[in-house]
């Protein structure tokens, strides 16, 4: 787990569901095949309706045409991020596209759990209504230990909720590493 995550922000609104994160027709690629695996990155967030893709302007692709890696490594979203299906392909797709942290007002719990147990990135929650404070393309920095987020483009800083009791799992790198470390398996 990195102490500082810095990079370009992609902004989304409320209730971004897993079908928008990775649509059902793309849940078929093998994760162990390095070429097929990239397809998850290519189609990450591909079904977000155009007007909502990359707020506030909208119509901004998360991953450029022909690419499998996103220019954006931090996602800022509203409430209930990741609602819907239990498909782990959703956090996996964000991970393969290069996401290192998601900051949302709240998460749907299966998605949150998948993010944590797979150790795909840091899922932060925040009491603040942040998606109106950031523009897609802003540069941000997260201080993981201090649970702090700074918008380097505007100079404003924000408080994140501490990772809490899942921090141990995230630090270990996922549920398997955590369970081995703590003698559960």
């Amino acid at each position: 787990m990195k102490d500082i995550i810095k990079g370009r922000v992609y902004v989304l609104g409320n209730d971004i569901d897993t079908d928008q994160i990775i649509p059902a027709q793309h849940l078929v690629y093998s994760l162990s095949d390095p070429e097929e695996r990239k397809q998850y990155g290519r189609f990450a967030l591909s079904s977000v309706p155009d007007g909502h893709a990359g707020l506030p302007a909208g119509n901004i692709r998360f991953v450029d045409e022909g690419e499998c890696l996103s220019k954006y490594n931090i996602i800022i979203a509203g409430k209930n991020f990741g609602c819907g299906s239990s498909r782990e392909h959703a956090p996996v797709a964000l991970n393969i596209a290069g996401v290192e942290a998601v900051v949302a007002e709240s998460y749907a719990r299966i998605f949150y759990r998948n993010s944590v147990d797979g150790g795909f990135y840091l899922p932060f929650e925040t009491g603040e209504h942040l998606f109106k404070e950031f523009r897609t393309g802003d540069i941000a920095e997260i201080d993981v230990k201090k649970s702090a987020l700074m918008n380097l483009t505007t100079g404003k800083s924000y408080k994140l909720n501490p990772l809490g009791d899942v921090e141990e799992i995230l630090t270990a790198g996922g549920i398997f590493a955590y369970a081995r470390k703590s003698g559960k398996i």
Partner: protein
Amino acid sequence: MGMTLTEKILANHAKREAVSPGDNVWIDVDLLMTHDVCGPGTIEIFKKEFGAAAKVWARDKVVIIPDHYIFTQDTYARRNIDILRAFAIEQGIKFFYDAGSPDYKGVCHVALAEEGHTRPGEVLFGTDSHTCTAGAFGEFATGIGNTDAAFIMGTGRLWVKVPPTMKFVFDGDMPQYLMAKDLILHIIGDIGVDGATYKAMEFAGDGISALSVEERMTLCNMAIEAGGKNGIISPDEKTLRFVSERHKGKIEAVYGDQDARYESVKRYNLKDLEPVVAKPHSPDNKAVISEVKGTRIDRCYIGSCTGGKVEDFRAAASILRGNSVKVDTFVVPATTEVEKRLKVEMIDGESIYSILEKAGTQIAGGPSCAACLGGPSDTFGRTKGDEICISTTNRNFPGRMGSKQSQVYLASPLTVAASALRGVITDPREFIR
């Protein structure tokens, strides 16, 4: 202090006297279900973490049910089923309902119940968010991802945070024009798609006791649409009869305590409720039928784990009987058992299947999840362009049924059938005789 039904089941499986909401506990798992979307990924992680020669913790406690990508030529989708088959053979999985074989069942949540895998007092995890359907049988059932499923596959255990319970009580007699789908869409509309996040949703009251087992499944199926961790209904005579007809082993029903602590209790009187729909693009975008009737539709869809059971088609057929649909209406039985029963269950001497056929609906060649979740481009009933669809399925997020531009309304089978006859959203009361 007493415990709710959910807390009691979790305490039993954590081998603790008591648990409270917020506790993190490791629990023993009774059953793990996986399907063709998440099974291959689960198997991959299982092998990576436990080794190529690893065996599942119990070969009779892992149930594999391909259902999502069945009738498609998509080579990747077909490969998923090949992976499941090879794994089932290698591991000697006792319950593998292979596609294309006489054992094929169809939609996992309905098949699980039909085959007696859903049992009171037990803990069921499945790699599908609608695993919560099985709460209808008084068990703790919830959806998980591939990593958690792989962990269970190897250990038979998983950690859970004990959820607080929200109780929803339905009083009074169920009017003929309402179905369980109306009740759950009312709740989701009232509390929102995140109104029950990380909470148990317990359904109770005379109205729930009067519901059939299938209708209870519809109710619990959509707990996840409010963000719920699980939906649950206390087992009763109907539950025990249904389960004992399908499961020969011991059934140990668990009941909540009288003095259990609920986070909230919300009451509804059934006679005050109207048929409802969820408008595009969210299950909580509730409208009572009078607000949307007359809305143009291009197609209707009756199917899925939540809307493709015998009772759903019986309801639809009661309205379609002797009439013709005005718009393309797709019918997808959830399982082979449902498909069979449609041909033998009668309404006034005519089979449900025949009624649906004569009304001009298009009946799928076999049961599966079909267009409930979009899927490969040749999926039966998948939406195209900006089509407007009214559907008995459980989600209407953008792109869920295929096209990102299409609009999906969710409604009960009665409302969908009535709408099919008019070509516009229609109040089922106009047809109920």
